[in-house]
């Protein structure tokens, strides 16, 4: 905290106005200032509503990120009036963090932009997208929009893909979307199995590009865990997507990125003219740098916080005979024995917002994100009331 106070004074507090600001902050206390903004996290959203529908980090970004955002206003508050032009600094910081070169990285307005960009570049009329059903919809939606075919790979009863079948179905595909941990099913395929799958796919279908979406990477607690960034950097057919929207708590800022072979990244960067500078805002760029540079304990404690809430919430459902899929993320996928819509509407009426439909499981399953422990203690009370009632429609 002492360090962050110094940073704040150094960046914002320069010159005459700065002197006033500094004494002002000194009097109030730096922590007081930041935490005053956080004292009623959800009150502004809709009084009392618990939002556990979008796999967000309920704690938001760390104080250093918020400091950096405020510093990004500039000493006189004019900086947001200037075009970004600083995307390179975030790329450099990311390159350092991941031990890759700047030419291995392209930024996006959230990983959403990355997913679209990759889909645009690697699917075609005769080059379908292959992904599990269900999966995060962005690539499939965009491929469909472009008139390109989407092939769905079913999951087994544990909500895991049969990787041999997945690899076989991906022969001749333009793009494979491999989200791990998988959204919305929350399950995780271990690093060894993923490595074998990628190798098999690569040898069976050398022209197929594989997008490994590691959005929930930081939440995995399974020891058989590693990033595929090193593979992506050397293999032009593998791309890894990452985001600041999940464990880093910055969904509102819109920062994501892809890491891959320099040739692949060049192709992606060309499609989205001026990588980063045209679609990303200055607060996001500066916040992203601060997020990377903050102490590693931020992610460690966020993972621990999430794990505790995950254990609590999953046990609550399991104790009531509704065993969720084995979650390695900040959300779970659970058979509630009734249509998700019915459950969702009933929960919403009681101030708890859970996720949208995920066909083909919309008649039986719901995705629930993990809020804070307090929020989940409240939420399970609502779930208890709602699920205590028999389903109005037979599942």
């Amino acid at each position, binding site marked *: 905290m002492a360090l962050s106070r110094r940073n704040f004074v150094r960046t914002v507090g*320069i*010159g*005459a*106005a*700065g002197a006033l*600001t500094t004494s*002002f902050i000194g009097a*109030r206390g730096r922590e007081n200032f*930041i935490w*005053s*903004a956080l*004292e009623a*996290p959800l009150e*502004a*959203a*809709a009084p009392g509503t618990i*939002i556990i529908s*979008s796999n*967000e*980090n*309920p*704690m*938001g*970004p760390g104080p250093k*990120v918020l400091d950096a*955002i*405020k510093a990004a*206003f*500039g*000493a*006189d*508050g*004019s*900086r*947001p*009036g*200037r*075009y*970004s032009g600083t995307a390179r600094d975030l790329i*450099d910081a990311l390159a350092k963090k991941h031990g890759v070169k700047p030419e291995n990285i392209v930024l996006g*307005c*959230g990983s*959403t*932009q990355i997913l679209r960009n990759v889909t645009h570049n690697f699917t075609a009329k005769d080059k379908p997208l292959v992904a599990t059903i269900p999966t995060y919809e962005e690539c499939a939606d965009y491929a469909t*929009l472009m008139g390109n075919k989407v092939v769905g790979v079913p999951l087994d009863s544990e909500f895991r893909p049969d990787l041999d079948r997945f690899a076989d179905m991906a022969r001749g595909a333009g793009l494979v979307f491999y989200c791990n941990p998988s959204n919305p099913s929350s399950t995780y395929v271990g690093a060894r199995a993923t490595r074998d799958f990628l190798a098999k796919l690569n040898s069976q279908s050398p022209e197929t590009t594989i997008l490994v979406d590691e959005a929930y990477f930081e939440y995995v607690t399974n020891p058989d865990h590693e990033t595929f960034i090193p593979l992506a950097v050397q293999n032009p057919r593998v791309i890894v997507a990452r985001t600041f*929207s999940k464990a880093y*708590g*910055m*969904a*509102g*800022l*819109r920062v994501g990125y892809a890491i891959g072979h320099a040739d692949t990244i060049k192709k992606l960067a*060309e499609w989205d*003219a001026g990588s980063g500078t*045209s*679609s*990303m*805002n200055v*607060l996001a760029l500066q*916040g992203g740098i601060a997020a990377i540079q903050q102490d590693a304990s931020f992610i460690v404690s966020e993972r621990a916080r999430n794990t505790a809430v995950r254990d609590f919430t999953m046990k609550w459902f399991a104790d009531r005979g509704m065993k969720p899929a084995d979650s390695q993320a900040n959300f779970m996928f659970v058979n509630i024995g009734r249509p998700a819509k019915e459950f969702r509407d009933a929960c919403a009426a009681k101030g708890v917002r859970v996720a949208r439909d995920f066909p083909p499981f919309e008649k039986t399953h719901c995705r629930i994100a993990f809020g804070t422990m307090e929020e989940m203690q409240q939420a399970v009370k609502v779930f208890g009331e709602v699920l205590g009632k028999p389903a109005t429609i037979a599942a």
Partner: protein
Amino acid sequence: MLRTRRGLFTVVGREDSYRNTAALFAARGHEAYVAELQTQGRNARPPLPPGTQEIRISSNENPLGPGAKVLDAIVGKFPEAGRYPFNSTPSDANLTAAIATHFKIKPENVSLGAGSQEILRSAVRAFTGPDRGLVTAAPTFENPTSLAKKLGHPLTEIPVDADFRLDVEKMIAAAPGSGLVFFNNPNNPTATVHGAKTVTDFVARVRKAAPDAVILIDEAYHDYVTDPSYATAVPLALETPNVLVARTFSKAYGMAGMRIGFAVGQAETVKRLARFKMPYNISVFGVVAAITALNDPAHIEAERNRNLEVRSFTAKALADLGCKCTDSHGNFLFVEIKRPAKDFRDACAKQGVSVGRDFPPFEKTHARISIGTMDEMRKAVEVFRGVLKPVTTAGR
């Protein structure tokens, strides 16, 4: 606590104190930045003489930024930085609704973009193809031109007329068979504007000549126009199929760094464009910033007046140096410097003044100069006075 937050930016943003602050920060900041870049072996401009602050008048930005109310609103949303823009309060849907209310239209007539650049790119993707190209001007804002080239779609660039205005007749003649006609009004970089009657007539005749083409009227500099014959084409877009108007918060609203733009048109046209929209393209902070700004029209009025005063001062100073500006209706000037823009730019940069890039086919004779603060432009004019001495490298 609210008082705490507001207090900070009221204090920092005070007119009398921030000038000093900005000067100090810019001088130190720039030198430190350049030194840092150089230690990394990266390309950077040479350090400026000690005490010189960089004057950035190269990108048609609002030098004052969005103002204290907007900054306060952003800080007020720190608790929701972790929420997606559809979960925050206000949400991105609230911004769409606020824009609709502003124009007295429906949300279905509005599509948001990460800057109007996303709108322009989406339009090229949505409305051009290998057999239906882009009709645009030269010089004009290049974004659609570059994307059409990249996609390999046919491209027709119509040179501006003798008065540096979009050549309406030739653009109409080029429209048949095209997919998209891009009409930047006022036109960047030439700064000229067409009046409402000309635009209405242009749209009607393009519609007749090319019924399937979409006409995209980019009004990025709308708030800076002072020509009484000008009017926004938003009502025209609402009553005419295949017409879109692009707007941005990057110029008079002072939020270029926030990336917020939007398109307005008939629901059917907007829908075709919006298929290419990136989901959640505006940040939680961008959403609240834009809504706050829309609720403060007096701020924009003041910015228009400020810009007009500084623009008139700068144009007159350049005229006194024998350099004629086109009739500007933006926050920038297109000026005949009678020498290559690069020579002028490099000479100005050495003294800490950054001016606009090359704009072919006028890169040998004209430069684009954005309008900074009055203080900045007074200093910039002194630099121009030194640089724009009689040409000794004629014919280069």
